């Protein structure tokens, strides 16, 4: 007969994080310490005893029901408990604890801020903004990190939001395009220039046209495709500089 459930005999689990894995139609759980599972997964915690509360595998941790031997045998094959625990640890699903989430969020925000700082410049000075300024502006713009997107996607999102708060611009890419002038019926040049921010240099050599352009990095793929399709692979794109920024120290 089951126990009567009253507040006094109820045992709350503290400092426990449960990792679950469904296998062979059964649910297996292990009891771990909080804030430790992610450290184990990214390999910075090597001591399994710092992660596991006990090496027992449960079907339900909070009720204290241990998994049966034959069920384990069926699901995992002939392995000892610790091996099974390790498998559950690496494959199972868990609820991320507060501190873990915080640190993941923090580092992700930092990396977003830094990549925004690396990608963008102040259009007036053509110098990058310091990361701290970007971070503050992002906060002002109510930017929040989307955990299900990667840094690059988040960064592009952030730049879009920042535009309304700060004079900011993607640092431009320097590109050299060469193709025979008659290719694409003379329209190619026009189209390419339309996509560029600025034409820095233009010259004809025999029948070949060389263009040095400053473009928005987002347009790189478009120009590449355009040139390749129109010239049937004979035109050439050359990346001269990934980003054009003033880099030197400047004294007032």
């Amino acid at each position, binding site marked *: 007969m089951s126990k009567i459930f009253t507040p006094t005999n109820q045992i*709350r689990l*503290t*400092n426990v994080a449960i990792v679950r894995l469904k296998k062979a139609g059964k649910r297996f759980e292990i009891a771990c*310490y*909080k*804030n*430790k599972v992610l*450290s184990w997964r990214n390999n*910075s*915690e090597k001591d399994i005893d*710092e*992660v596991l509360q006990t090496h027992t595998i449960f079907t339900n941790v909070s009720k204290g029901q241990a998994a049966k031997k034959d069920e384990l045998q069926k699901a995992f094959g002939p392995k000892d408990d610790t091996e099974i625990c390790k498998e559950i640890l690496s494959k199972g699903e868990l609820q991320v604890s507060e*501190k*873990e989430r915080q640190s993941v969020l*923090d*580092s992700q*925000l*930092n*990396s977003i*801020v*830094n990549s925004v*700082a690396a990608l963008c410049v*102040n259009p*007036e*000075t053509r*110098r*990058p*903004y*310091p*990361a*701290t*300024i970007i971070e*503050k*502006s992002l906060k002002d713009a109510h930017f929040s990190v989307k955990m299900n997107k990667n840094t690059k996607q988040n960064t592009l999102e952030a730049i879009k939001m920042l535009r309304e*708060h*700060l004079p900011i611009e993607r640092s431009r890419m320097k590109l*050299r395009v*060469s193709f025979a002038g008659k290719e694409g019926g003379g329209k190619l040049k026009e189209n390419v220039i339309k996509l560029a921010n600025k034409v820095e*240099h233009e*010259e004809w*050599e025999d029948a*070949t046209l*060389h263009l040095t352009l400053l473009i928005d990095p987002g347009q790189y793929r478009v120009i*590449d*495709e355009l040139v*390749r399709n129109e010239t049937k692979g*004979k035109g*050439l*794109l*050359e*990346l*001269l*500089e*990934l980003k054009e920024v003033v*880099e*030197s*120290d*400047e*004294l*007032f």
Partner: protein
Amino acid sequence: MPVVDAGDLALLQAKQQQVRNICILAHVDHGKTTLADSLVASNGIISQRMAGKLRYMDSRQDEQERGITMKSSSISLYYQDNRNADYLINLIDSPGHVDFSSEVSTAVRLCDGAIVVVDVVEGVGPQTRACLKQIYEEQLKPVLLLNKLDRLILEKQLTPLDAYFHLSQLLEQVNAVLGSIFASDVLAKEDINDKQNYESALEQVDDSELYFSPAAGNVVFCSAYDGWAFAVSDFAAMYAERLEMKRSELEQVLWGDFYYNSKKKTAQPGAQEKAKKPMFVQFVLENIWSLYDIIAIRKDKEKLPQIAEKLGLKLAARDLRVTDVKLQIKTVLGQWLPIDRSVLEMVVRHVPPPHQINEERAQRLLYPANVELNTLPAATLSLKECFKSCDARSEHVIAFVSKMTPVHISQLPQNRAKRLTDQELQQRRDEVRRRIEQRKQQSEQPTLEQLTQGVEQLSTQAEKVDEAPAEQTAEQPAELPEYEFIAFARVFSGTLRRGMQLYNLTPKHDPRQPAHRVADTAPYATQVTVGELYMFMGGELQLLDEVPAGNIVGIGGLEAHIVKTATLSSTLDCSSFSELSIMATPILRVAIEPVQPQDMPKLVKGLKLLNQADACVQVSVAPTGEHVITTLGEVHVEKCVHDLEQSYAKIKVNVSKPIVSFRETIVEEATVDMLNEAIVKTADDKDINKKIAVQQTLNKLGTLRVLALPLPAAAVELLEQHANVFKELAATPRNTLLSEKFSTLLASIKSQLSVALAEWELHNLTSLSKAELVERIWALGPRNCGTNILLNLTDYEQPDFWSAQSKSSDTDVRNTSDTRRDFNSSLVNGFQLTTSAGPLCEEPMQGVCFAVLDWSVHSEGEDLNARGFGPFSGQVLTAAKEVCRQAFQNQPQRLVTPMYSCNIVVNTEMLGKMYAVIGRRHGKILSSDLTQGSGNFAVTCLLPVIESFNFAQEMRKQTSGLACPQLMFSHWEVIDIDPFWLPTTEEELMHFGEKADSANRAKVYMDSVRRRKGLFVDEQVVEHAEKQRTLSKNK
């Protein structure tokens, strides 16, 4: 004394014999500003009572709050000596705190003499030494003022005799400092090569003029707070009659080991030996002590009037009733021994007037030290005469601007309401009376009430009239900046007039070049128009029409032309004045940013103003986009931030540690472990093939094999040195023929590079000679100009890196069969990407060579872009990036840190503490030598830039301010610790334990950068699982 009219002072300016330019210098808190207060009070500008409390010269709010002076400020004072001669004294009060030593430098340059103040209780401080040194260097005439004598009486409770010994010891200390400065200077000048000369140069130089001595009259004893001061001569005059001695004789014996023989009525030497009281004690100190005793200790109300009468002082009944002891002392002693008289008398006697600039000083100021005098044109040399005679009528006007002071426009005299003259006041009064009369007639009820009302009206009305024009001017120039910069200058020759056209000579101006002397076209001189002229009166200004030579003056309207210092001259023959000798160079770097990111433009504007206003701050923009200011120390930072927030930018700013950048590199495999035990290597370890990284493009059609190798230091240095050349080469558009000069330069770099690579170990990868290898350089990275090389060891023929000419061939010669050509730039860009952000912490790489051993593309008729992995060029780029990264990681990786070279001058006692500070911050001592003639050590050391934050502060604290480090960027240095190192060998495990708890410095640096950039940091969220705070049981 009545308030002296500014007009009278302006008249005095023309009489050079009666002008003195002095500054007050001392260690912090030794009483400079208090002294200035007392002197200002003597001119009736502030009340005698408030002198010492008001700190009139500290006009800034933060100066008043903190109680320290932060800027030098000037005031013109009037003094009449006992022979009824009038004098104009331009007094400059200077800050004592080390952080503002630049302000001291600007003050010293403008003066002819200096009052050195020393606190008798605290003695000679480090800043006192610094001041004396600066005075010596600028060749000013110093006078000594021993301050705070009252502390010896009331606080230390010394007997007069003890006090005398204390004072004479202190005097010796000051003279010892002077002596050592003098000695090291003489020794430095001595010709070391002259072996014949066995006698030290010291023995031949006369130093008698150098020292302070009360008998010579250049020492004054004083208590600035209590408002009294005396020189020995004051007492000599008092006692000459009573002691029946000649006054001049008495002056000589009143200080020193003399006692008075009352029978013979003569002074006898050897007081100490015969256990007699020295005369100074008997006649001077005991009198003062007894006065203090009566007033402050016994509070004897009866005796005081008697004594006052004896001393010939008039005490009002009110003065006797005052219960405040200090105030009473001030009234009695202040009347008996007025501070202004003794101090100013001494200044007038000992400081030369401006037209007596000595030869050496004139030369030093006028001509740069490294210029041979005879190479200068005659016209320039003749200027020295004008300069020395300081002739106001001279046609050559020369002025030196030592700093730009910001003044709020409301404080400019032209914007300030004028004080009403007596006549005007009388008119107003009459007006009011008339109105009252009218009203009286109207109401026929004359009451006293109305009269008072009328008077009130008068005052409010007067105010209103005053306010009106001020408001107008304030509204009108809404666009104008709030601050006007006024040049703090001294006229050295000629007469400066408003609206005059002068040349502003920059430091590069050189009268030796004929081109520089041609008007209009002189390259380093601009023509400026002198704006308003001002006389400095503490925080206030007084308008002037003209200023003759030898005076200190404020010049308006130069804001746009002068940044910090300048030489103004009417002739182009004048050379630019030598730079200020600044005692400390700014070393504390902090990053400044606005709290509101939108305020960025305001901040930039504010920083520009700050740069102009502060002689000793450097403002720059770092490559990271941060605004960095370099200051002298913590207090200086606070002042700069305060200025920015309150006046220049008017926004809130944040101050933070500036970002320090690192570099990443690889090194040769270590042969010893961390404990210097040899590592035994198996053949397997030595196999270089294990280090080769292989990477396929995503569609598996292209393969790259790359090996990363460290470059020799000489090659790295060479590449670093010529970064600009490579940058230019990369920017040269295709098909342009390089200029001949450029080609030869490139050729020389090429040959130097092959020499630098001579010793380079290549592990039998290629049979090519070093010169051929240089030809096979594919690219440099990052940004086409770095110190990393992409080396081509494949069968592919890369476009020639060394000339722009053949660059075109790779794209234009379409008929080459090599498909790899099309992807040349992708591969190079992959390399550029990796070198600009390495795997350690995404910092640029340094000194790594990526040798591409194999590059194959097996298209076999298939379209390279097919298979759905995007364009093949992109795949090549990714593959190149990855393969370089792997190759880099296959070698032992190291972090490279920028290093400062640091010079410290420190005396022997503090040497140990200084070493401790350097050691704590992982500095390396390069040398430490005893400088000849002084007890100081000159220490040179290297310090990682990342450890330099607050270094100067800590150094100063630990060594009680006796060591002032100067930092300069020197080079990049590899930190020879693997950031991923863990103990492996048995000995290492024993020595460091399993976790290597003694923190790995390279790892600490790397993690700090990684954390900042949001990269992966190998650390756990929680260290000990069991020790987490858990929820309470009942919840």
